[in-house]
Each structure stands twice: as C-alpha cells, then as structure tokens.
C-alpha cells in the first residue's frame, strides 16, 4: 500500500486534500457564521464560467496560454465583488436575489463557453467534476500560494470576522471598517472557491466548503472549535474519499462529498438524540 506514495499524482492529491481542508475550515466557518452559503454556490459557477472562457480564448488563439485557473480566479473575484457592491446597498434578502441572478448568469455563461469549445470540453469537464488525481506541480504551487494567503489572513483577522458576523452593528460602533472586512472576506471566499474548484470540481465546491463547517457549527461550543472540527471533518472526508477511490476506482471528489454529507447527517442525529 505504501508504494502508492511513490506516485507523484497521489502525493499531490494528498497535499491538495490538506490544503483544501484548511481553506474549507477557515472560509467555510466564516461563511456559515455570515449565513452566506448560497454565495459559495454562486461563486463556484462564476469560477467555472471563467475557466471555460479561458479555455475558449486559448482554443481560438485569442489569448493563447491563458490558464483555466487564471480565468476562474478573475471571474470568481469579479463575481464576489459585484455581489458585495450591490448587496452593500440593500438588505440581506436583497443579497440572496443578487446572488441568485449572478449565479444564473454565471451558469449560463459557463454552459455557453463550454458549448463553444467543443472537443476541448473535456478540459472543462475536469473543472466540473474535479481532477484531484491529475494535478500538476504548477496547479499545486498555485493551490499552496492561494491557500496560504487565505489561511493567514483569516487567522490574522479572525476576531474581527467573528465579531462582524455575530453583531455587525456593534462592530461598526466599535469603529471597525465593516465594509472593508466584507470585501476582504468576499475576495478570500472567491479565491478559496478556485482552490476547491481545481480539487473537487464546481459541483462539489459547495459540499466541501460548506458541509464540514455546517456540521462543525452544530457540535462546537465556541467559534474556534468550529474551525478545528471543520478541519477534521474535511480531512476525514478527503482522505477517506481518496483511499476508497483508489481501492474502488471511483472519483475521489464524489466519494469525499458523500462522506462529508454523511458526517453532516450523523451530527444532525447526534444533536437530536
């Protein structure tokens, strides 16, 4: 079993799972605290549209060598900032509508671009389903950089983010620049989405970013425990998914998603018992 670690793709997958788990614990918890999980689903589809556009631009030699990940990053950040801009001018119910609209637009664009790249659509397919076992060294480097930035900034401003989520008005009265923190969190959420997009695919970004934190939030006694438990749940889902995928020859991200949702159902049962 251990010689499997000689396979660089497996090693890269293992590192990616660790990175995804840290990002998912940091951003997932804050997203649950802010009750903005729908935003993650929206941004994930924005990222997919960006990736598909990049493949299209490369395919037609309009912007050769444009990497899908670069496209996904640009699109998801634009989408997050747009949602932030419009929702800062309205109520929270308003934000749901804005995310819904940008979500639909992003999804339509994604389908449009994928349909335009024809035989290269398989590349986009990888971003929809995730290609945990096909990561290159460059992909991994990108994931390491983005994950480190995200985890560093969330740790640095953790108290501010929690206070704003807990009591936005109180935070503003304390003199916190809430809007600035909101934009920072939106951009970090967008970047995290891209990290997960590469690892588990657009469809499962929501599952892996939100579900471990949602399960942790049900069990934890304080906010930092939510992050620790979410990290643990993500690692369990990721590694168990990977091991089962190798044994059963199935998609690791799908198995990880199923394990994460199972963990959530178990926490629900524990809470009810």
């Amino acid at each position, binding site marked *: 079993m251990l010689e499997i670690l000689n396979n660089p793709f497996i090693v890269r997958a293992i590192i990616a799972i660790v990175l995804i788990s840290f990002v998912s614990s940091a951003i997932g918890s804050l997203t649950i605290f802010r009750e903005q999980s729908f935003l993650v689903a929206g941004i994930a589809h924005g990222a997919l549209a960006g990736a598909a556009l990049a493949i299209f631009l490369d395919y037609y030699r309009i912007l050769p060598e444009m990497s899908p990940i670069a496209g996904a990053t640009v699109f998801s950040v634009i989408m997050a900032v747009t949602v932030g801009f419009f929702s800062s001018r309205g109520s929270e119910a308003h934000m749901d509508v804005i995310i819904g609209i940008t979500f639909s637009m992003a999804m339509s664009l994604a389908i449009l671009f994928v349909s335009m790249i024809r035989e290269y659509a398989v590349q986009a397919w990888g971003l929809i389903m995730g290609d945990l076992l096909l990561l290159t060294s460059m992909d991994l480097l990108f994931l390491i950089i983005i994950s480190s930035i995200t985890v560093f900034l969330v740790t*640095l401003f953790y*108290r*501010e983010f*929690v*206070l704003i989520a807990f009591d936005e008005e*109180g935070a503003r*009265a304390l003199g*916190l620049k809430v809007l600035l923190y909101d934009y920072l969190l939106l951009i970090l959420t967008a970047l995290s989405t891209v990290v997960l997009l590469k690892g588990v695919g657009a469809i499962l970004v929501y599952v892996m970013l939100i579900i471990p934190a949602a399960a942790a*939030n049900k069990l934890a006694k304080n906010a930092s425990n939510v992050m620790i438990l979410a990290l643990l749940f993500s690692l369990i889902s990721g590694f168990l998914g990977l091991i089962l995928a190798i044994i059963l020859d199935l998609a690791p991200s799908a198995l990880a998603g199923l394990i994460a949702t199972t963990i959530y159902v178990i926490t629900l049962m524990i809470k009810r018992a």
Partner: protein
Amino acid sequence: MPGLRSETAVDVRNLYVSYGDYLALENISFSVPHPSVTAIMGPNGAGKTTLVRAILRLIDFDEGEIKVFGLDVRENESEVRNLIGYVPQRERVREHIPVRAKDVVLLAKMVRLGPLSLPTKRDIEEVKSALKSVLLPREAWNKKFSDLSGGQKQKVLIARAIVLKPKLLILDEPFSGVDTVSQREIMGFLSKLKDKGISIIIVTHDINPIVEHIDNILLLNRRKIAFGTPQEVLTKENLSKAYGISVKVIVHGGACYAIIGDRHA
C-alpha cells in the same frame, strides 16, 4: 470628575435625518447632562433608533450638529467611538454562531486592541470584573450565548460595552424580552454606573419599569415632543401628542406612569 465642572454628555442641535424621501427626524435639539440617565421614548417608527445611530455615526445626518463630550461626531469619529459603549437591540445579534458568554466580552476588548494583540492577564481580569458587575451568574460565563436566557444575554451585551470603559453608555431596547427580575437588576447596576460617572441613554418603548431611575426623558415622534424630567414630560398632553391616542397617566409615589395599552409606547 462630576461636580467640578458641569459637562454635557450629548448635545444635539437642529438635527435632521432622512432615508431617501422619508424624513425620519426633524429639527431635534436636546442636551444630556453628565452624568445622568436619559430615556428616549416614543411609538414605533418615532426615530428613536435612528437618533441613536446618528449619535454613533452608524448613519449620516442631513443637517444639524451632534457633540459628544464637546466633540463634534463628524470630525472626531474615532475619539467619539472610544467614549461611547453601545448595546444594540438583541435581535440584531446572530445567535447561531457558537460564542461563549465570556468570549463575547473578550472579543470586543481584543478587537479594540487590534489584530495582532493577544489577551493579557489584565484583559482577562477586566472581562471577569465586567461580567461580575452586571451580575451574570458565574455558571453562565462558559455557556454559549444562544443558551442563555433573555436577561442573561442582555447582561453579557452590557458587560461587553462596559469592559471598554466608556464615559457614555447607549442601550437600544435593553428590556425587551427580559424578565422583571433581570430588568430590575439591570436598571440597578446602570444606576450604579451613573454614580461612577458614566452617563446612560436608554432607548425604550416601555418607560414604566425604569421611571424611578431616570433623570430625563426625550419624548419623540419624528419631532421632539418634550425633553425634561419624567414629571415634566409624562403629561397627558405630551403623551397624547406622541402616541396620537388618549393616554392615561397615573401618579404614584412622586413618579408618573403612562398606561398606553398594547401599543408600543
């Protein structure tokens, strides 16, 4: 110190606040002496919270001037914020986030100190003494905020404000959803705070439980109806003007009580 020099905690002059076309506050002027306990009362939609938000600079105002301890709030935003402790309406707090009672207080303390600060022994001691001073039972300190009773939650939020050592404490509807015993306890230690030289402003729709502890009342309905001592303000004419209905006033033990029925008063 109080007594040496007469100080004004809040001075509002000709204040106008609007939301788009809707004029929420019109030509409000009053001045809160320091230290004192002042209640802001009026019907729903009277602009009570709007007024508080303008003082805290959570919203901007169209015209007029607000000074807190002589400082113009527009020009000295951060200095003014350091002078004020704010206790928002409890419904505005998102309770699904698991935060322990003592952490709610510590969080505010640490956020004030900045991102890279670590809690010192002294910070922890200050948190403990704030929780003690609001009479929160010790067994509740480690409980999740969402597991506390209405009165306990309110006490935690007040402890969070006073741990920052404000000169002025502003509370928005601190007694809604709070049992009578806790109401009395809360009002009791708020009065003690005044004795220690902290001015208190309480926004409330129900003045009766606290009327004995109040120095001044601002009666509001988008305009100032009256400002003065409870005896001066709580008259049939003023209350009818504010609430638009006939109001019964009962005088008991030198204090006036307004009977405004089920309407938010």
